[in-house]
């Protein structure tokens, strides 16, 4: 049991030692290009707000590409993950792809979940905020440029999505015709990123508005009052007394919810890693076998009239063939034992925690200076350890370690004897005809 916990830690250090120059170089490239694209986007926003927003997509895309490339770099040192990939490749009869095409495919696969994660953790808002700040710096008091974010509330957003959809269609057509395939692949990826980015941000804004609207209705407060009255009939009758903040305590439910989200982040990152490595594992039979009910769901889906199914497939088929394998990879990882998951959560948070303390320790070491001097020094410290005040910033000492750790956990999960036995005992069947078509 202890071996399962220690193995990923040893592997992390070994991976880090073997690949640190490549990983650090990639993080640095990500920082440079991210900053560059941010400036370009802000400059473009001064000319046209929509163009600025479209270019902002590149900032988030840079982050995704760097992450994917880092995981890809570690692949040669992960024999179990590679074996699983190769086995799946043999099954689905996809030929070996070249390096850049592979990377492009991995990015396409990771796009939607990555952005969903990005939005859910508020990084999307962070990026947009940073962007509006840079634009405001360039045009003090919004002179000439106005509010660069006003397009987010306008109907022109639909036009932007339509344009990127048209470009994407054109790119896929060109891709089919042959020619520079990987170039068109990149265009497709950028277009998809664009609407996912815009879409998610708009949805999150509309969600806020919808909630605000509901909250502003009297119905809700009446309901709430009724509910309060029902749950605390007597306490509600008295005005709440003033309580000093030191004496107040966080109730258990809040604490549990916080703990849940605290533990969720490492798991989500592991899912991202599994999805980046697992894009080749195409087999929905294994997934469908999870539960009889899921199986029945699949049967019921097949019973739907064909024209309806075609209509639905038209929209989801691409995503289905992309995400089924991922669901598989995730299932494999999450079912690999409690010890490994606990190691993941504790280890991931430990890296975070140590990075934050290293940041703090460094500030103590440097000592007090004037604010302007400190501002410059803090940039150097943040480059090393990432900034604790900026969620999406990555330090060159921390990020490679984090990625190595996630890869090590995944490798350990794939190498577990339990899984190997399970695989040989239950050989997965051939892929369904529908899957083969989309593959």
């Amino acid at each position, binding site marked *: 049991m202890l071996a399962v916990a220690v193995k990923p830690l040893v592997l992390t250090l070994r991976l880090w030692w073997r*690949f640190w*120059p*490549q990983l*650090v*170089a990639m993080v*640095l*490239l990500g*920082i*440079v290009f991210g*900053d*560059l694209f941010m400036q370009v986007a802000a400059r473009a926003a001064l000319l046209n707000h929509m163009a600025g927003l479209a270019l902002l997509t590149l900032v988030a895309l840079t982050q995704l590409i760097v992450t994917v490339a880092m995981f890809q770099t570690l692949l*040669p040192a992960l024999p179990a993950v590679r074996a699983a990939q190769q086995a799946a490749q043999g099954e689905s009869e996809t030929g070996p792809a070249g390096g850049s095409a592979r990377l492009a495919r991995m990015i396409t696969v990771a796009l939607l979940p990555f952005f969903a994660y990005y939005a859910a953790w508020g990084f999307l808002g962070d990026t947009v905020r940073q962007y509006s700040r840079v634009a405001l*710096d360039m045009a003090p008091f919004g002179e000439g440029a106005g509010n660069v974010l006003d397009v987010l509330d306008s109907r022109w957003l639909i036009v932007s999505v339509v344009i990127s959809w048209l470009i994407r269609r054109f790119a896929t057509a060109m891709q089919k015709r042959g020619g520079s395939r990987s170039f068109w692949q990149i265009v497709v990826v950028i277009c998809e990123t664009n609407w996912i980015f815009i879409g998610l941000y708009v949805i999150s804004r509309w969600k806020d508005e919808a909630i605000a609207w509901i909250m502003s209705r009297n119905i809700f407060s009446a309901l709430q009052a009724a509910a309060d009255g029902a749950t605390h009939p007597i306490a509600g009758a008295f005005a709440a007394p003033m309580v000093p903040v030191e004496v107040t305590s966080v109730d258990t439910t809040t604490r549990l919810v916080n703990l849940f989200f605290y533990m969720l982040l490492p798991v989500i990152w592991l899912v991202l890693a599994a999805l980046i490595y697992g894009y080749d594992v195409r087999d929905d039979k294994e997934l469908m076998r999870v539960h009889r009910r899921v199986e029945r769901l699949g049967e019921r889906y097949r019973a739907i009239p064909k024209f309806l199914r075609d209509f639905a497939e038209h929209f989801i088929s691409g995503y289905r063939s992309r995400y089924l394998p991922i669901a598989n990879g995730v299932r494999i990882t999450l079912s690999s034992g409690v010890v490994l998951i606990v190691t993941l959560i504790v280890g991931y948070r430990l890296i975070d925690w140590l990075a934050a303390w290293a940041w703090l320790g460094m500030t103590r070491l440097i000592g007090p200076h*004037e604010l*302007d*001097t400190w*501002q*410059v020094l*803090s*940039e*150097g410290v*943040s*480059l090393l350890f990432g900034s604790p005040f900026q969620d999406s910033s990555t330090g*060159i000492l921390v990020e490679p370690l984090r990625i190595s750790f996630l890869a090590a956990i995944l490798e350990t999960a794939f190498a577990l004897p339990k899984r190997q036995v399970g695989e040989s005992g239950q050989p997965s069947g051939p892929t369904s005809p529908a899957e083969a078509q989309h593959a």
Partner: protein
Amino acid sequence: MTAEALDRNNRASERKWRRRSLWSLLVLIPLALAVESYDSVKALLGNNDLFPRRVAWGESARFGGSDWKLTDLRGAFGMSNLPPDSVPVLADFQVKIGDPDLQKLWLGCKIVLVDKDGRRWSPTSIVSLKTPDNVGNCISAIFSGAKSGDTLDLRETFLVPKEATKSVRPSVSVASERPRFLLFQLEKD
């Protein structure tokens, strides 16, 4: 190709990329640092007086488009109603206007006293000494509408501890010239 040869090939390419990455760090680390800290460095240089330009006693120096000259620096001893051990110090300048666009060139004008330990004192308004009508200060000069070739008399009043009066020297800085600033020397220096 056999699996062994393929493996050897991969190893060689990995070593190659490791070496390349190591070399690229030499460029990437300073580059990333420069990109990240560009705005902060700009703010640091634009807001602070970092590099002094010493001006000998009796000489004038071109600064912010005009010629600055320190004409007097003296303490006004024996005043009442002041904190104990503090002395008002008056610094007088004569400025011959060159470029008359003072609102741009003299923006953020700051005259301070610096002592030998690097301590700084800003002008005070606690001490109100009578000044002739034609004597202004740095900020009022910006809006005086002075033309090229005019000579302005400027005076700033400071309140410094008695022990610092021996070593204080006046310095002048404006936003258009920062991080450089003028540090005037006295006759005895």
